[in-house]
């Protein structure tokens, strides 16, 4: 029941619809009481040969009126109640999406997209069911059940009513019990199904390996084994699921027998008529649904409640990084001062960065090198204000980055991430991501800067070619270059290339760097890279190792230093030098 309280805000919002819908539902329940009574009267009048054409017309007319009224009311209450639950689903989905779009990257790091999707689909539909089917079931089983029992007790015989009702609670109890059992078995079946899903996913991702090793048959055997498990687990579900209907008809059967037996006795004693008995039995039939519904209700509510809690929990995750109260509404511009004494990722013990200090003048290029895990990307994450809570200060222009409005900071930074994510849209829309209405000239200009223009022209539909998950597959290098073009569209004060040229060959890399240099003469650029060639010409190079700067300077200075950078450079050169014996010009 608690879930209805939790959803109270919604019921209030849709008060009119629910009141209207429930009133009509109650009216239908009352209308439903009429036909069995009419049948009983007609049978008695037939039995005593009192039926006249006039009274027959009256009874039949009554049923017709009831039927038409019930049809209209039924249509409208459905529209009101189910319509409201549809509206709730829409409303919650919108809220979730709004919320998702405010969450910072750390939120996404801790959760998988699949899980978030599950909340937005399964959980919402469970809540929707509670607000629709749940409300209906609760109200309808109470009203119909109550009215029918009252009608049986008052208009026919209260003793017979009590007797016939004896087996009924069993129905609610057993269906609710089966429901719980079913839930457990169903979970196992779902797990088996999800294993099967994973297996298929894996086989498709690894299809080239499987083909190469000619393992199609063996892989199919493995799949068959898993699908056997699915059958087995589902059979367990089936064995419980199939209990519902027979149990219900058994219990109703008992009820009927009791009412017939005692009804016969009462008729014999002259307390009631045969018509009453027929009406009584028809009423009993009307009770099946409310009893059944009551059993199901608990399961619907339980599921809805758990789902609603999960959604609430998700919605209550605070926006981690928000604007300060008097945040500056200006786009940052100017020199960058990065001065971090210590930074740990939330929930981690080891420092991701310590004693990282450097300054970058406007228009300069910074190169960051170092092994995976040395802290290159952590520096960028702090600069982008994806994480906070470090000891130190990061200044962009005259102010610390957290003084600016978040949106202004983002406006100033063009970020090209390592994982080049493209949307399922045309190449054009992906490049003009910042503003889909950008003119063709500008789009082509940045595409040329990123050296992807010629590639795009070779695509089947040129700039209109759809890429991304549901589009054509591009090579890693092409994706990287499109993401670079996308960032260049912003004409950012600060461009960050996070190992964004790794899938591009050396020749293209050099051309891109060259054209970037020309086009962004006064703007600041930060490049991280495994390949030293990408950062060789930077104004400042920092060498990261285990979270801190171990060397800092220009290429020439670092070479002179003969330290780690020099070693890395030598290593990259070494293999080539070894074979230079061949005598290159």
């Amino acid at each position, binding site marked *: 029941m608690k879930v209805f309280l939790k959803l109270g805000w919604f019921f209030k919002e849709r008060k009119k619809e629910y009141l209207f819908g429930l009133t009509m539902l109650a009216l239908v329940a009352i209308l439903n009481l009429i036909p069995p009574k009419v049948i009983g009267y007609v049978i008695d009048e037939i039995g005593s040969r009192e039926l006249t*054409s006039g009274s027959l017309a009256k009874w039949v007319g009554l049923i017709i009126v009831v039927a038409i009224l019930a049809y209209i009311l039924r249509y409208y209450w459905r529209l009101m109640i189910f319509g409201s639950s549809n509206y709730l689903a829409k409303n919650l989905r919108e809220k979730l999406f709004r919320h998702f779009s405010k969450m910072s990257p750390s939120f996404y790091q801790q959760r998988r997209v699949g899980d978030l999707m599950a909340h937005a689909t399964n959980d919402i539909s469970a809540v929707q069911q509670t607000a629709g089917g749940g409300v209906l079931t609760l109200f309808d089983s109470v009203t119909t059940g109550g009215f029918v029992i009252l009608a049986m007790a008052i208009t026919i015989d209260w003793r017979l009513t009590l007797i016939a009702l004896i087996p009924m609670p069993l129905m609610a109890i057993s269906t609710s019990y089966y429901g719980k059992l079913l839930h457990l078995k169903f979970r196992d079946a779902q797990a088996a199904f999800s294993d099967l899903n994973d297996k298929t996913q894996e086989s*498709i991702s*690894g299809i080239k390996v499987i083909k190469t090793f000619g393992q199609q048959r063996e892989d*199919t055997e493995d799949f068959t084994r898993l699908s056997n498990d699915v059958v087995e687990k589902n059979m367990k579900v089936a064995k419980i699921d*199939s209990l519902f209907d027979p149990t219900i008809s058994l219990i109703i059967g008992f009820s009927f027998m009791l009412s017939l037996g005692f009804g016969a006795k009462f008729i014999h004693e002259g307390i009631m008529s045969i*018509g009453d008995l027929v009406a009584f039995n028809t009423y009993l039939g009307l009770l099946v649904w409310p009893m059944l519904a009551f059993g199901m209700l608990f399961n619907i509510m339980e599921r809805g409640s758990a789902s609603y809690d999960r959604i609430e929990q998700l919605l209550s995750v605070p926006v981690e990084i928000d604007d300060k109260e008097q945040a500056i509404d200006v786009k940052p511009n100017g020199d960058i001062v990065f001065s971090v004494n210590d930074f740990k990722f939330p929930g981690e013990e080891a420092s991701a960065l310590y004693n990282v200090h450097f300054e970058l003048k406007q228009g300069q290029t910074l190169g960051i090198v170092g092994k995976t895990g040395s802290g290159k990307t952590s520096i960028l994450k702090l600069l982008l204000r994806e994480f906070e809570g470090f000891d130190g200060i990061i200044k962009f222009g005259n102010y610390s980055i957290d003084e600016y409005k978040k949106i202004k900071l983002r406006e100033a930074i063009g970020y090209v991430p390592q994982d080049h994510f493209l949307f399922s849209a045309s190449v054009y829309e992906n490049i003009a991501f910042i503003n889909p209405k950008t003119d063709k000239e500008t789009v082509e200009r940045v595409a040329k800067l990123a050296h992807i223009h010629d590639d795009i022209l070779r695509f089947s539909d040129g700039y209109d070619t759809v890429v991304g998950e549901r589009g054509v597959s591009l090579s890693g290098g092409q994706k990287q270059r499109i993401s670079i073009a996308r960032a260049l569209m912003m004409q950012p004060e600060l461009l960050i290339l996070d190992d964004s040229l790794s899938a591009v060959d050396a020749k293209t890399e050099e051309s891109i760097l060259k054209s970037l240099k020309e086009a962004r003469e006064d703007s600041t650029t930060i490049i991280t890279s495994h390949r030293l060639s990408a950062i060789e010409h930077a104004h400042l190079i920092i060498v990261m190792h285990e979270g801190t700067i171990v060397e800092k300077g220009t290429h020439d200075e670092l070479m002179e230093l003969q330290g780690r950078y020099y070693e890395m450079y030598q*290593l990259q050169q070494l293999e080539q030098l070894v074979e230079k014996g061949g005598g290159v010009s």
Partner: protein
Amino acid sequence: MKKQTAFSSKEQRQIVVRLFSYLKPHKKAVSFALFLLLLTVIGDVLGPYIIKVFLDDHLAVGNFDLQPIILLAVSYFVIQVLNVIISYLQLVKFQEIALKIIQQLRIDVFKKIHQLGMRYFDDTPAGTIVSRATNDTEAIKDLFVSVLSTFVQAAFLIVGIYVAMFLLNPMLALFTLILLPLIFLVVYLYRKYSSVVYMTMREKLSQLNAKLAESLSGMGIIQAFRQEKRFNEEFDEINHEHYIAMMNNTKLNSILLRPVIDLIYFTAIVILLTYFGITSFETAIEVGTVYAFITYINRFFEPVNNVMERLAIYQQAIVAGSRVFTLLDEEENEPKQGESNELITEGLIEFKNVTFSYDGKTNVLKNISFTVKPGETVALVGHTGSGKSSIINLLMRFYEFKQGDIFIDGVSIKSYRKDELRRKIGLVLQDPFLFYGTIESNIKLFNDELTDQDVVDAAKFVQADTFIEQLPNAYNQRVTERGSTFSSGQRQLVAFARTIATNPKILVLDEATASIDTETEVAIQSSLEKMRKGRTTIAIAHRLSTIQDAEQILVLHQGEIIEKGTHQELLAQQGLYHKMYLLQNGIVQ
């Protein structure tokens, strides 16, 4: 995504017929289940009849002889209990049949996936294919479980009830026959409109989910580019469209489902009462018969309601079925192989005038010819999009080519049997893929011929043993999530061991490009050198330094071989290779 249009009734019928053809292997089980169903229907029809007898012969006339009444009561009770047991068995049986059928369908889909050519995987997102094998077949399961048994049960029960009614009162039964066309009309109308409405709703839902999934995956980008507002608006728009579609569905269900069936029910009651009323003006009517008819009519509407409720599932199963069959009928199969018993013994590879295009428009390989002598190494060099990977794709028979031919040991690659090619050509991919399992299972894959010793030997050979033996469970170390717990270099070494374990005659290498740290790189290079010994090798090289000892280097540019020769020869030519070499060595001219 293709727009899903409603199916014509002919198409629907074809899909249903094809789905039902999966029942064939289960003929016996189906007949048994149907027999049980028949028994339950007989029980259902007999119950009210017994009560009728009780009402007419005993209650109405005040005949209270104990013996016949007890007999009636006992038989009613026994029938009820038997009915419950039999209907339980029947329900379970139908579920079992359905589950087995779906399993078969799934295996068929999975087999088919393995027969598809790479081209299919290029054009179809993995998620979609997975859905065909799992979610869509699951939707079809509902057709077999509930729809099949409900529909059949409904048909049986309705026939049974009509038989009983005809026996009781043929005239009235004839009148009630009018219910059937009414019900069929409703079913017809519902299906006609719901197939459109329902399909729209499903389509909107899948658009909604696609939008959501994509936005979640790309949220970092959306925020970095400050496009939250635009995406919120786009999402709202789809969300609203989905809401409208849901509302239309709710309206349709309200007009045509339960409410209208109840209306027909009342019509039936009106017919009964009118008939009995009018007849009673002339002759006496047995009250029990009225009771029996009323009960039968009540009973009659139970299966009808069940069927109506499941029509939506039926619709969904048809859609899912059509998707599954589209996949099963997909003609983008992997290239066909011949039946020749030729064996690859030498490893001589010849490309002769091979021209190839992925899309049939732009040629990515233009008239490629070259020869690799047994035991030699040929390196493919060129920048991205030059055609290096395409050459490997053709040699591995991932894609079919039409112009030119590739020969191995003088025999066209197309005429070798598939398993011979797979056994003799080993490929190491740029991105080594590890499967869920253990290190050992990843080296063995499913090859039962390999002993544990073979696995260890292979690992030793490629120098993967050092890192494997340091793992807590060594070769039994679990591999999860595609090996993400291992570094890319370690994954690469496992992939090497996997290839070397099969001892191929020809080695195809797609050199890993990025992010392998220097230490592993050294191990990888020396393993590669060992692997190449005595094997014909075709290697894609991104770093020229790794292939300088190759017998032949082919420099590709826009699908053509523009230079070929040894490292020294190519340097002397002062062409593209020379330039690439200088660039990689950081020598500024």
